[in-house]
């Protein structure tokens, strides 16, 4: 009890916060959920330069167990699992980063367009209502199935996979922004801005956009995870990035047949990497958007 009183006095008399080791440590600790993401990103950037062996060339004898020169062993074609797991981070993270940037931006714009025009008469209103239906339709069919259809057309390079992922993951972002736009539209400050003479496009950009885009931004870390997972799923199904390009999904796919005969390593390590990448982004997202009140 006395502690809280003295603290509040301290706040009243001395608004400047003391810099203490304890405070720095507390702040550092409170940001701890974000650190794994930093590590994952670091590995994605420098990974291909720090790998001990080539990730795409046969490095040694096949089916070596972990240890010695091959930290994580070698797979059934003699590729080094450690080097590939590290190098794969770049491909998977690149696709996921680009996808969450594109899907979030496109989702916010689409959500604004739909939300602001949906109840209108005229062409824009029709376009908006048509788009709602298209988004619903895209979301009704399983993401993996849409992904399969898209890669058949756009092919399987990093860029085309990004395009496919963006098409799959934009609808959800757009729908969340749209819901928020519909709420925000009826708020008092929008009426105030209208009365102050602001209209149409400027009103949307200046008042609706900043207030209605947070659901998509908050969801961006989950989009990131989903993009990695779908990319890896395609790789696993054999329709994603083609081997020997290092990619966790296709590595797990080759590892699966190894694991079925007892050689667990070529499956376990890329799987762990995949789970860490997805989980670290979900964790960081939760920390970054933690409500002040909660």
């Amino acid at each position: 009890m006395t502690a809280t009183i003295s603290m509040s006095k301290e706040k009243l008399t001395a608004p400047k916060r003391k810099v203490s080791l304890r405070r720095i440590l507390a702040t550092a600790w409170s940001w701890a959920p974000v650190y794994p993401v930093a590590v994952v990103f670091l590995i994605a950037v420098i990974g291909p330069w720090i790998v001990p062996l080539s990730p795409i060339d046969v490095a040694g004898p096949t089916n070596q167990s972990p240890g010695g020169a091959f930290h994580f062993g070698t797979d059934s074609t003699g590729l080094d699992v450690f080097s590939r797991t590290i190098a794969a981070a770049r491909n998977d993270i690149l696709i996921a980063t680009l996808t969450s940037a594109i899907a979030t931006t496109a989702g916010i714009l689409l959500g604004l367009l739909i939300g602001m025009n949906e109840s209108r008469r005229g062409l824009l209103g029709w376009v908006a209502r048509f788009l709602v239906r298209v988004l619903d339709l895209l979301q009704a069919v399983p993401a993996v199935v849409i992904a399969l259809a898209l890669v058949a057309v756009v092919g399987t390079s990093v860029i085309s996979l990004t395009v496919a992922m963006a098409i799959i993951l934009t609808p959800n972002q757009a729908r969340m922004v749209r819901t928020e736009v519909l709420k925000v539209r009826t708020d008092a400050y929008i009426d105030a801005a209208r009365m102050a003479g602001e209209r149409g496009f400027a009103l949307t950009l200046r008042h609706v956009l900043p207030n209605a885009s947070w659901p998509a931004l908050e969801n961006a870390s989950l989009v990131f995870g989903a993009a990695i997972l779908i990319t890896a799923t395609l790789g696993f199904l054999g329709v994603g990035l083609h081997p020997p390009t290092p990619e966790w999904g296709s590595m797990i796919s080759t590892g699966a047949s190894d694991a079925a005969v007892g050689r667990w390593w070529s499956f376990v390590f890329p799987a762990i990497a995949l789970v860490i990448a997805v989980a670290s982004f979900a964790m960081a997202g939760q920390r970054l958007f933690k409500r002040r009140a909660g």
Partner: protein
Amino acid sequence: MTAVAVPLGGFAVVEWLKKQRWWLTRVLALPVHLFFFSVGVFFLVRMIPGDPVAVLTGGQNVSAEKIQQIRESLGLSGGLLSQFGNYLRDIVSLDFGDSMMNGLSVWGELSQRLPETVELAVIAMVISSALTLVMGLTAVLKPKSLLARILVPYARTAGAVPDFVLGVLAIFVFYTTFHLLPAPSGLADPTMTAAPRVTGFPLLDALFAGDTALFGSICAHLILPVAVLVIANTPLLLKIFLRALEESIDAPPTAFRIASGASRKTVLLSVARRAAPSAVAMLGTLFGFMLGGVVVVEQLFAMPGMGLYGVNAVNTSDRPALQGFLILVAAISLLVFLLVDLINMVLDPRRRPGLAKEGS
């Protein structure tokens, strides 16, 4: 007399239609949505790179007549508009053409494979929703119990461990290491002969044939795929269900029941009743997850279902097969969502269109 009865009769029909509008519009929207999806698929399939005719002729020089014949069989002859007309007519009559890879009828193969996929998805779905119901209620009713303390973080991890990782892990542990379950190679023991086809569902067919050995083998082969689907998708479901229950508990009607001295049972029934629409809506989402998961699981366990067919179609750029696969999956998904919508509108009349406007 008749002069009065006819307009009155017409009037009654209009009134009836107005009253039934909430479900009629939804049912009528299904073919419209499917139509738009088919339009998308039509253009998507035509955008697939490469020349399908060259694939079918194997790069050999063939007569112009033969090429024309191939184009016709692929639905690629004539202008885009007439192609589109033929395409729609074929879809309505369930004629998706022949596969480019093995020449078999696409619809024939899909309808052969559909029951197996549906069986897998439905079994996993039933188990998953039953588990969610039990776990969700436990977590909410006894928030301090050990189970609740485990379940809530479990729901939070939703989706971090993908289904294919779980699948490989399961095979490694239960087949490779401990030899508890059969090899991941298809529907049943390959040495057994399949039961005569009655319903198409492997389990039911084995049951009808009275072949207990086959039935047991199919069950044993289903354990891991079903477990993978259930474990991968239940947390996602549990998260949604927990949120729905908490919202329902926090809503004013709960406070009113408690304040007016209702028994615990009545309060809980009221909470459950108000959470029911969200729980039903969740089933639609779950079916979508399962259908997506089945594609992966079938590949992993070499089960000859629809998902495997779709993946092979993509791998070989088999246009007619891909077309049929996409439209069938879309039709099933839309049908499930329609059912969920209708059940929800029966449970919660406020969701019916037309009524919302009067309320607000």
